[in-house]
């Protein structure tokens, strides 16, 4: 799990071009959207692509997306339970 979280942080920084953010700065429970990392609607869509591409998870319902993308913690949990690759 810890490995997956670290991997996710690296991937998110790269996929979302968070140039000035380091892996250490992203806390597991901190909110990804809103005040947290300041992500927006395009980032949410990009995370959806990342889930599909890297973990074989298709998220089509925006409501599900909202709960999964709360924090690194929730994201990692969802991936570990639903990944197909």
């Amino acid at each position, binding site marked *: 799990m810890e490995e997956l979280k670290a991997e996710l942080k690296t991937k998110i920084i790269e996929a979302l071009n968070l140039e000035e953010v380091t892996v250490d700065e992203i806390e597991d429970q901190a909110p990804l959207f809103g005040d947290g990392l300041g992500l*927006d*609607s*395009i980032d949410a*869509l990009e995370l*959806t*692509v990342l889930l599909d591409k890297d973990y074989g998870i298709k998220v*089509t319902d*925006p409501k599900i997306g909202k709960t999964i993308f709360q924090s690194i913690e929730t994201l990692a949990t969802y991936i570990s339970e639903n990944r197909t690759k």
Partner: protein
Amino acid sequence: MKKVYLGAYNCVSPIGNNLTETWNALVKGKSGAKQVTITGMEADICAALVGEDELNGYFNKLLREENLYTSTGFTKLEKLMIAALIPVIKTVTITQETTFIVSTTKGNIAYCEPEEKGSTAASLPALAQKIGDFFGFKRPPIIISNACVSGLQAISTAKRLIQMNYCTDAVIVAGDLVSEFVLSGFKSFQALSDRACIPYDEARQGLNLGEAAAAIHVTGQQLQNHPFSIAGEASINDANHISGPSRTGEGLKRSIVSALAEAKLEPNSIDFICAHGTATIYNDEMEAIAIHRSGLADKPIHSLKGYFGHTLGAAGLLESIISLECLRHNLLLPSLGYQKQGTSLPLAVIKALSEQPLKRCLKTASGFAGTNTAVLFERELY
């Protein structure tokens, strides 16, 4: 400021090869939306396409009838644009003072391969020049590519160019295709509906892409049998988000208020609104807020996306000429598919075809990058 008038206009759309066919299909409530599959994404969605075989047949027939012999090959988009332009050009004397305006977002992108780096296949100037040369325009074309307001903004730009004595008249063509390029992109935005789109409705779940071309003559001189003029217009940015519609509708509201101010008209003098209405959750909600804030909440309103889909750079012009036909026929077209209020603020969405005296129409469009345009069309009294 000089008054600017609208002359001949025409379109080629998913529901008709020309304006007459398209209008007849609209009055019958025909939708162009059909099931389409995006191969790579294994996704079924709905889009409004112009049949390639039918277009080819119609295009060749037009060229024969008009004695327009040519050895040049044309892409589907170019055929659409030329077919839309032919009846309009017949009414125009092209002089050194006639400007040719092309509105498109993606042009010939469907013919651009990623390997062909720097290829001219997708060049917008090359496309505009080719069409311009075919009809013998004497000045270099002006191309407007301002997202989904392009087609409508082309009309307001033509008006401005005439008012600033840049030209005496302008011919506009607006066109875009449904390509895998845009289908895959809008799909990745989760913006596409797998059913026919239903703007402003509670059950709306996204847009349908559509393809079309439309053309119009804009001039500083009032022409016989062409009773329409541009009373006011504006294009104001939301400065909010590059893809997410504004939550306050500020840019659209300011565009509408500016257009009304230029026309020296009160909101009450508008007879109906032909809005953008893409049928995405956030676009329609933004429009409802802007329309309320502009004092137009009680005005009959429709979106034509249920008939044509969202034809991108063509949409603003295509929907404008249909608005002019509504004024001409004194007919309000229903917003196809609409049943139940789906925006937080109520709109007077037109549910059934109805005949009533119409003099003024407000046409609006909004798009990526926070663009908005509002144009006020008016029937002149003789």
